[in-house]
């Protein structure tokens, strides 16, 4: 590979041709601050609009300073990242950003996680040189069931725009207006709820400031817990335990299942259950549906719609309802694990516990923002009472634990309550891309072939590639599987199916990069693929160590069918565990 030698701040650096100054400097241990730059290597997306001008450096001889993020190194180049000229320019630029930014950092939802705040701290900015009462660009606030927009805090880095348009291909956000009043907003400055937004929350995950934030339900939960008349049940999604530790100083990929359970119990939840249980239930329903469709298809039934698409991901459901209204009969009708859990908790469980439906509060802890929207959908309510009352994110749970004065690190590990805390490795891997379809395959194989599955790990279904395909041998019958994560990849697959390019039997789609582990409600990882990989490994490791790894072997699931549901796709199952989809180009 052709390499280039240059000098950055008096240090000799040798880098491959094509390296930017920012990367080269980083390699040499020089951290040039940046704001709008975002690199998502696992998604092959480098966002470098060169617009914030925070990373400007001096190259002696050049007329102007250059942005380090968007300037390639040249042989023999001399770069000064901390010359007086560069420092003054950078400071002035950051001061300008701060001059048009609300100063409510202490109570900002992004306080402590804000890149602008970090810049200000790092650069030791103590005053902002602008005239008294300098104008601020202010905008209408926009609230949705899942995320809030406070564009007064937008720094026009446009990362959300790139994520929404390039990665997710949702097209809800783009720059509008000109000059001082330019801002990122839905077209015609619509509200998010009227836009094609799927509430995937990836914009929130990459927003460097408090402009895009998640809806906060922590105090609803605290109030419910304090209400003596309420029986509060909590469920935790598989991806939460793989990331929650990060909020308490654990390295990424540390599984904190036991401590999380202990913390929830300590917070006062009456029952600490697991969404993994509902994931196993999902496999029973969805897997049976898959087998039913495949069997009918193989028997020559031409009315069967294949491939079957997974339906666990609410952002994905929103996406196909908005973008593919002609394909509403293709996805599985199975509800997501969150909603299956709620439906079972407020019927079977409530009855068992002797709690009235209206006295039970179901809280879900999710890595996801769209789950906040999902649990509010009308079809998941009975007489106005939702199956799941509040969905909170991993980040909100961390806050709850902190508000509850719990020293997380010293907690003794505890186990989930039964029966709805019993789960298998199959339920657990729902948290990563490829996991749902692997879990379904484990069960479908045994149900289809009637044989015991010896090799439980389907490595061909795993990985971080955006679109993956595999054919699984069901004892001579090959089942063709497609997997996509991010909605942009989902669109590619769907468009291919529409054109008849693929002949998949089943497709799994998750809206977020890496699946739920990279959800918009997770500890902010700013697209760091190392963090995502660590969370993924942690989930597969935990699955590997689980005594039971196939959903249909979960004893509590077996019992649930015996005692209550009958069999998969039964009438009761249909009523409680299945749903239908709506064509709503506008939500």
């Amino acid at each position: 590979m052709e390499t280039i030698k240059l000098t950055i701040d008096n240090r000799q650096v040798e880098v491959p041709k094509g390296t930017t100054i920012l990367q080269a400097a980083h390699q040499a241990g020089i951290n040039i601050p940046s704001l709008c730059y975002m690199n998502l290597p696992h998604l092959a997306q480098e966002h470098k609009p060169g617009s914030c001008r925070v990373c400007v450096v001096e190259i002696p001889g050049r007329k102007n300073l250059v942005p380090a993020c968007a300037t390639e190194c040249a042989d023999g180049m001399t770069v000064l990242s901390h010359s007086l000229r560069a420092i003054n320019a950078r400071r002035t630029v950051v001061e300008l950003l701060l001059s048009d930014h609300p100063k409510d950092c202490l109570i900002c939802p992004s306080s402590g996680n804000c890149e602008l705040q970090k810049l200000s701290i790092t650069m030791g900015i103590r005053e902002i040189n602008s005239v008294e009462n300098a104008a601020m660009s202010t905008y209408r606030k926009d609230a949705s069931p899942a995320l809030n927009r406070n564009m007064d805090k937008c720094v026009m880095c446009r990362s959300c725009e790139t994520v929404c348009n390039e990665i997710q291909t949702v097209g809800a956000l783009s720059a509008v207006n000109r000059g001082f009043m330019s801002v990122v907003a839905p077209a015609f400055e619509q509200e998010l709820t009227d836009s094609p937004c799927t509430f995937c929350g990836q914009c929130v995950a990459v927003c460097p400031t408090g402009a895009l934030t998640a809806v906060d339900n922590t105090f609803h939960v605290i109030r419910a817990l304090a209400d003596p008349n309420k029986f509060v049940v909590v469920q935790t999604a598989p991806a939460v335990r793989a990331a929650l530790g990060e909020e308490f100083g654990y390295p990424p990929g540390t599984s904190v299942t036991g401590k999380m359970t202990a913390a929830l119990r300590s917070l006062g939840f009456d029952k600490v259950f697991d969404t993994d249980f509902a994931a196993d239930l999902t496999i029973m329903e969805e897997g049976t549906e898959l087998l039913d469709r495949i069997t009918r298809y193989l028997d020559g039934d031409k009315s069967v719609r294949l491939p079957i698409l997974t339906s666990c991901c609410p952002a994905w459901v929103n996406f196909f309802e908005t973008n593919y209204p002609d394909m509403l009969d293709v996805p599985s009708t199975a509800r997501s694990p969150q909603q299956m859990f709620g439906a079972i908790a407020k019927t079977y469980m409530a009855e068992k516990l002797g709690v009235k439906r209206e006295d039970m509060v179901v809280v879900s802890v999710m890595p996801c923002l769209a789950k906040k929207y999902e649990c509010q959908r009308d079809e998941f309510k009975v007489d106005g009472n939702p199956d799941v009352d509040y969905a909170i994110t991993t980040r909100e749970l961390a806050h709850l634990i902190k508000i509850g004065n719990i020293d997380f690190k010293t907690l003794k590990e505890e186990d989930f309550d039964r029966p709805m805390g019993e789960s298998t490795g199959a339920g657990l891997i729902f948290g990563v891309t490829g996991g749902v379809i692997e879990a379904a395959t484990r069960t479908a194989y045994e149900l289809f072939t009637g044989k015991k599955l010896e090799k439980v790990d389907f490595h061909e279904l795993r990985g971080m590639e955006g679109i993956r395909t595999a054919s699984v041998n069901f004892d001579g019958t090959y089942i063709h599987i497609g997997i996509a994560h991010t909605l942009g990849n989902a669109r590619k697959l769907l468009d291919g199916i529409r054109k008849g390019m693929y002949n998949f039997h089943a497709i799994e789609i998750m809206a977020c990069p890496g699946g739920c582990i990279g959800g918009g409600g997770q500890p902010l990882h700013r697209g760091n693929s190392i963090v995502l990989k660590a969370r993924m490994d942690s989930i597969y490791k935990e699955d590997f160590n689980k005594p039971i790894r196939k959903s249909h072997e979960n004893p509590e699931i077996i019992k649930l069918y015996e005692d209550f549901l009958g069999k998969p796709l039964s009438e009761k199952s249909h009523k409680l565990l299945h749903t239908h989809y709506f064509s709503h180009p506008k939500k």
Partner: protein
Amino acid sequence: MQLLVCGGTGCRASASATIVEKLNESLKAHQLTEEAQVVTTGCFGFCEKGPIVKVIPDNTFYTQVKPEDAEEIVAEHILKGRKVSRLLYENPENQEHIADSRHMGFYQKQMRIALRNCGVIDPENIDEYIGRDGYSALAQVVTDLTPEQAIAMVKQSGLRGRGGAGFPTGLKWEITSKFSSDQKYVVCNADEGDPGAFMDRSILEGDPNSIIEAMAICGYCIGATKGLVYIRAEYPLAIKRLEIAIAQAREYGLLGDNIFGSKFSFDMELRYGAGAFVCGEETALIASMEGKRGEPRVKPPFPAESGYMQKPTNVNNVETFANVPVIFLKGPEWYSSIGTEKSKGTKVFALAGKINNVGLIEVPMGITLREIIYEIGGGIKNGKKFKAVQTGGPSGGCLTEAHLDTPIDFDSLVAAGSMMGSGGMIVMDEDDCMVSIAKFYLEFIVEESCGKCTPCRIGNKRMLEILEKITQGKGNMEDLDHLRNLAYVIKDTSLCGLGQSSPNPVLSTLENFYDEYVAHVKDKRCFAKKCKALARYTIDPDVCTGCTICARNCPVEAITGEKREPHFIHQEICIHCGVCYQKCKFNAINVE
């Protein structure tokens, strides 16, 4: 005989189309339609005195013609050979009438290359263009020259881009020609946005075929078969004439396949802009043409490598293209003999402001500002004193008396703290407040910033706020330091040319008129009396008759006095609204 009537946008706004009608009616009535024809042409440039009617072959130049003058021009001049002296241009120095335009000071120092056909031919008739050697440069290029040879000639001519930055045109073509691609594009930047500048519009309105010919030549040189003109939608007449010219050129086979029997094919289309100033920046222009938000992007890659639809694209300004055919007709040696060492040829300027001869002029590079302002421009209006000249549009700088004798070209203007820009030239006199002027230009920039990069989006707004504070008499010396620092940082860190040059009006006025800033800040005085908040109104007791009209009209009751006795303004109450000054019938109120 021919009667040339200006059909540019300016003269049309003063009923030149009706003049054409009336002239035709009169010619018909006098049965002179055989002897004389009326031709609607492009702009003559002397907009100050428009509408213009010029009689050929004797070059009689009638100014400020009204439709009702048509009959007299025909009856006297055409029929009887007697010039209508009341419509002739009057020499401001000796009040003598000048009949022949060639003897007018306005034209004497001009040299018209880009504007060669403006005011001469009917732009809606391709035959007239062809009659003046039109398309023979294209014929020569596509039949006799290789692209390399043609590019070499453009390089040799020394032609530099007229859009503002002055990048060597031949070099730009050469770079684009070196990138291979299945499709390349020639783009004409007709997104003229400087306030007061209208040279590109005038060329397109007056000589659209020259642009088509030049774009085809460029296409041949760089290997492009497709031309696009990005033109602002508020130039309807230019669009119409360009469309007519394109249709006629296609009809004549000058656009289309196998031009002049060669293997070269070329065709072109128009793309309309919505009038955003930043879309004159080539990457923003390309984004806008692609249907995206009109905002610039980081370069490299330059459009020569990845431009419109990610294909190699050569973008040149209208005036640049207008020079191209002449280089081939008269030879690069001839062209490079005009101008200065590093800036060859001529430059079109739009003269405006406090100058007698407002209009469009074309002068050789190297001419001095003094020659332009005093000889071509006819000096300052109303005998006032010259104060500054602002060149380069909103992002240019203000030059002073000290710069008047500098030969102007791309480099000398930059060295003096301004720039060539697209050729706006606004003259200011002693009544202009330079702080207010800087503020005015900054208001434009703040309005036109696309908002992409921080320094331009927020920095210019902050500079404007400081200037507002200063003109309101609330500034302090620290503000001047902040202003200067902001200006330098914005210049140093902005993403595109708009932002990088946006502080020029501030920097050049800080440099050249620092005293005025200090007067505003320290003494709370505006020499030019433009800043209302700084004006101090007093009543001259010797002149005041005590009529009480000022006191009765003062909105804040700051004026007291007995009837028929001199009145008095209480400065602590006065809000500087100026109503008393306007109402006083005896000029008893003084403004400081």
